């Protein structure tokens, strides 16, 4: 049985239709990458899956329950937002929020909760700076903590919205590997929004490509082709494979030429 069912989903803001008729299912352990230029509704789709945004039509079910009802934990890794340098928060406090930060009252000194937090910190390799002030850590270290925060409550689904932005290649690789390890070990499906497929290309199962007004879903080999993208954009688009990397040329907005020329070590 699938973990996530998205059925005939549409999202419109006034006159503008971001997408319609969108449907797919996510199986256990599956990694779906959501690609496409800015303004096509990638982040909105994440917000719908989180239950923060009502779609204009269609429905979303996560483990038999609409996300808005919050029956299940959904792990969320947002776009990199650097913390204030002076924020009164340690790494372990940030992770603990993922466990019970939404509950009323004070957090109790609870051995079981502490053990869960420690386990999540260890899972992402952040134990060494668990007690350091979050604001003094590097962007990559902060993003690992966010990952631990998303994982600590043992979510049924992980949503990551451009989690690699402003990370260097080694850090990008580390974050992708951690998500990959998690879904293989625990079977937690991952939805991974990115403007650049290459850092996740080696591990992604399927790609959802959101173009202005149309979309396509399938394996990278099915979707990331000149034919499919030309059809989506309704103009000639070339998809090139250069040393195992995907390079898209000729999209009308031309916003997401995939970092041609950057080193990528496999």
């Amino acid at each position, binding site marked *: 049985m699938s973990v996530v069912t998205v059925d005939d989903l549409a999202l419109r803001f006034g006159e503008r239709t971001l997408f319609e008729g969108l449907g797919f299912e996510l199986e256990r352990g599956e990694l779906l990458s959501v690609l496409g230029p800015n303004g096509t509704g990638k982040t909105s789709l994440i917000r719908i899956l*989180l*239950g*923060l945004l009502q779609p204009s039509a269609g429905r979303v079910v996560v483990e038999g329950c609409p996300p808005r009802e*919050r029956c299940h934990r*959904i792990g*969320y890794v*947002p776009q990199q*937002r650097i*913390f204030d340098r*002076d*924020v*009164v*928060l*340690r790494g372990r*406090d*940030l992770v603990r*929020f*993922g466990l*019970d*930060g*939404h*509950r*009323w*009252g*004070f*957090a109790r000194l609870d051995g079981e909760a502490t053990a869960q937090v420690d386990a999540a910190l260890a899972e992402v390799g952040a134990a*060494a*700076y668990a007690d*350091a*002030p*979050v*604001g003094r*850590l*590097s962007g*990559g*270290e902060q993003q690992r903590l*966010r990952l631990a*925060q998303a994982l600590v409550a043992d979510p049924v689904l992980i949503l990551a919205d451009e989690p690699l932005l402003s990370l260097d290649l*080694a*850090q990008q*690789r*580390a974050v992708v590997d951690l998500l990959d390890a998690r879904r293989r070990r625990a079977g937690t499906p991952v939805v991974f929004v990115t403007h650049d497929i290459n850092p996740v290309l080696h591990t992604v199962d399927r790609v959802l490509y959101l173009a202005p007004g149309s979309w396509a879903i399938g394996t990278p080999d099915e979707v990331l082709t000149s034919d499919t993208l030309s059809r989506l954009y309704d103009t000639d688009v070339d998809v090139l494979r250069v040393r195992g990397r995907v390079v898209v040329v000729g999209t009308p907005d031309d916003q997401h030429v995939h970092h041609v020329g950057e080193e990528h*070590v496999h």
Partner: protein
Amino acid sequence: MVGQLLAQHFVHTALWAGAVVAIVSGAIGVFVVSRGMSFAVHAISELGFTGAAGALVVGIDPVLGILGGSLLVGLVLGLLSLRGRERDSAIGAVLAFGLGVGVLFLSLYQGYATEATNLLFGSIVGVSDGQLRDLVVVGGIVLVGLAVLYRPLFFSSVDPEIAAARGVPLRALSVAIFLLLGLTTAEAIQVVGVLLVLTLVITPAAAAQRLTARPGLALVLSVAIALGSTEGGILLSLEKSWPTSFFITTLSFAAYVAARIYDWSRGRQKRLSSSPPRRLWAVR
């Protein structure tokens, strides 16, 4: 002389009133600082002054005017739940208008000028038993409110996006913290006056923030600094008859400067001992 004064009932009342206000201000200050609401505190207290001036004109208890003014502004700012620059300019606009109205009220008021001075700069030794009781009740409401809201308030203060994703009601919390801040401000105005509320609500929390990254400890330190400054300030003003508010602001500012120096020297030691910089991320 101080010994004789310490035996006086009004001094006891002042010390108790100062303690209540300091505990409440120090506690809420941690959230105010983490949400970047310093300017809002200032606006709420100045409009508490407008409320008090209005109350003087119509002849009711100015404390009620303070409460009305600061709660109203707190409610408006909380409902707007603005962020960043927009909030900054909105508060500036509301603040300027409110003060203008306050000036009108003061010119209409035919009573003693000391009433107005007391509002602006505080009059802790003038606190009556009845007022102390009110301070305890209102302070208790704020502390209970903070205790109930503690986790989601803290979560949404430092990480609003994730908190929203976890179902934390951001707008309701924003209104709640502004209302609690309105109550706190109304309390603090009676001790240090409109112009110096920041010294109890902002300075101790800002100092605590420099001393620790542990949220619980920061709360305790902030309360301790506010308490020490207030009680120390009252005692010093008995020794030398300068304004109490002067001593309170001086002590809390001294704590802030000391905290910054401590933080700076700690950072410096760390930089010296850890060069070349530690790599926490292994490069593969």
